[in-house]
């Protein structure tokens, strides 16, 4: 179910990623002030954008979970937030590398964009421990959704607050896209599409892997004659249980065939 379209998505990601990288190094002109160092922005900024959008999407999926009580939405929200956190760490590392090259420091504490992004990452770093701290799967998913919605609302507010602040030390890429030469703007858009595709593909892989594992577990329960009901104790885990309906259906189906 989750694996549908994965092949097409993976091929598209590889193609767009290759085209993007080729454009960065062979098509986009050198920036007058920063020269070759500016090439970092073609991955750093798209990663930052995808990370922040991912956190907001995670919140929207959590709203859907609270509305429908369908555990599949919780799983999607969990995977998107998990992946955004990984991309966020990538953003921090690439940003630090750029800062070292441009400013001569790995980190500058009086730069609002850097610090606010770090705050967001640290906020979401508590998401997994929060989930792990709650043993009951139902409560875990509910509390995690509330967290995802609250933190997801914090992300755009934080972004706006930084934009409205007086200090503008950090280079503005999105705000000045219209000033970018056409070649640079096109390269940036392709790179943004590539990183967004990479993010989507990785999320889909993660969902497919989790679903497959749940199906294998259901198969094992069915073959070994163990109970498939919700009363069966589950080991403590930060990850939500995947689509128990499908897993149970798979188990019943197999039990019917083998029994």
């Amino acid at each position, binding site marked *: 179910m989750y694996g549908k379209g994965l092949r097409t998505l993976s091929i598209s990601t590889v193609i767009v990623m290759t085209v993007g*990288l080729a454009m960065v*190094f*062979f098509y986009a*002109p*050198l*920036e*007058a*002030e*920063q*020269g*070759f*160092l500016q*090439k*970092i922005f073609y*991955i*750093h900024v798209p*990663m930052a954008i995808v990370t922040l959008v991912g956190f907001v999407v995670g919140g929207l999926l959590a709203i859907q979970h609270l509305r429908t009580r369908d555990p599949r939405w919780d799983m999607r929200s969990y995977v998107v937030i998990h992946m955004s956190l*990984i*991309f966020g760490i*990538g953003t921090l*590392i*690439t940003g630090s*590398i*750029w800062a*070292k*090259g*441009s400013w001569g420091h790995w980190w500058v504490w009086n730069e609002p964009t850097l610090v606010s992004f770090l705050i967001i990452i640290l906020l979401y770093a508590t998401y997994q421990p929060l989930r792990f701290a709650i043993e009951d799967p139902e409560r875990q998913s509910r509390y995690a959704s509330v967290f995802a919605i609250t933190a997801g609302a914090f992300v755009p507010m934080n972004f706006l607050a930084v934009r409205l602040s007086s200090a503008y030390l950090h280079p503005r890429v999105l705000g000045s896209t219209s000033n970018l030469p056409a070649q640079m703007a096109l390269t940036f858009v392709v790179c943004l599409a590539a990183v967004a595709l*990479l993010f989507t593909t*990785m999320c889909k*892989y993660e969902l497919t*892997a989790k679903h*497959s*594992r749940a199906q*294998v577990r259901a*198969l*094992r329960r069915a*073959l*070994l004659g163990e109970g498939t009901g919700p009363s069966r104790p589950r080991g403590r885990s930060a990850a939500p249980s995947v689509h128990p309906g499908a897993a149970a259906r798979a188990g019943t189906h197999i039990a019917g065939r*083998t029994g």
Partner: protein
Amino acid sequence: MPLAILAESPALPLHTAGKYVAGAYVVLFALVLIYVTIMAIRLSHIERELGELLEIAHRDPLESSREPQPDPAESTLA
């Protein structure tokens, strides 16, 4: 051609900026590589589990055929 473009007027000399740019792109590559490795490990676990389950599924009918046959009357009632 690309070298000629790069040699034009970089604010930071290429030998200085190059290592930072390479480092940033290596980070992206490493992220993807680590993820692919994790996925490969997971896939091998699933494959192993499926192998075990297949073994169980093949073994079960043989074991049940070795078991003593139930009384026909009992089986009818069941």
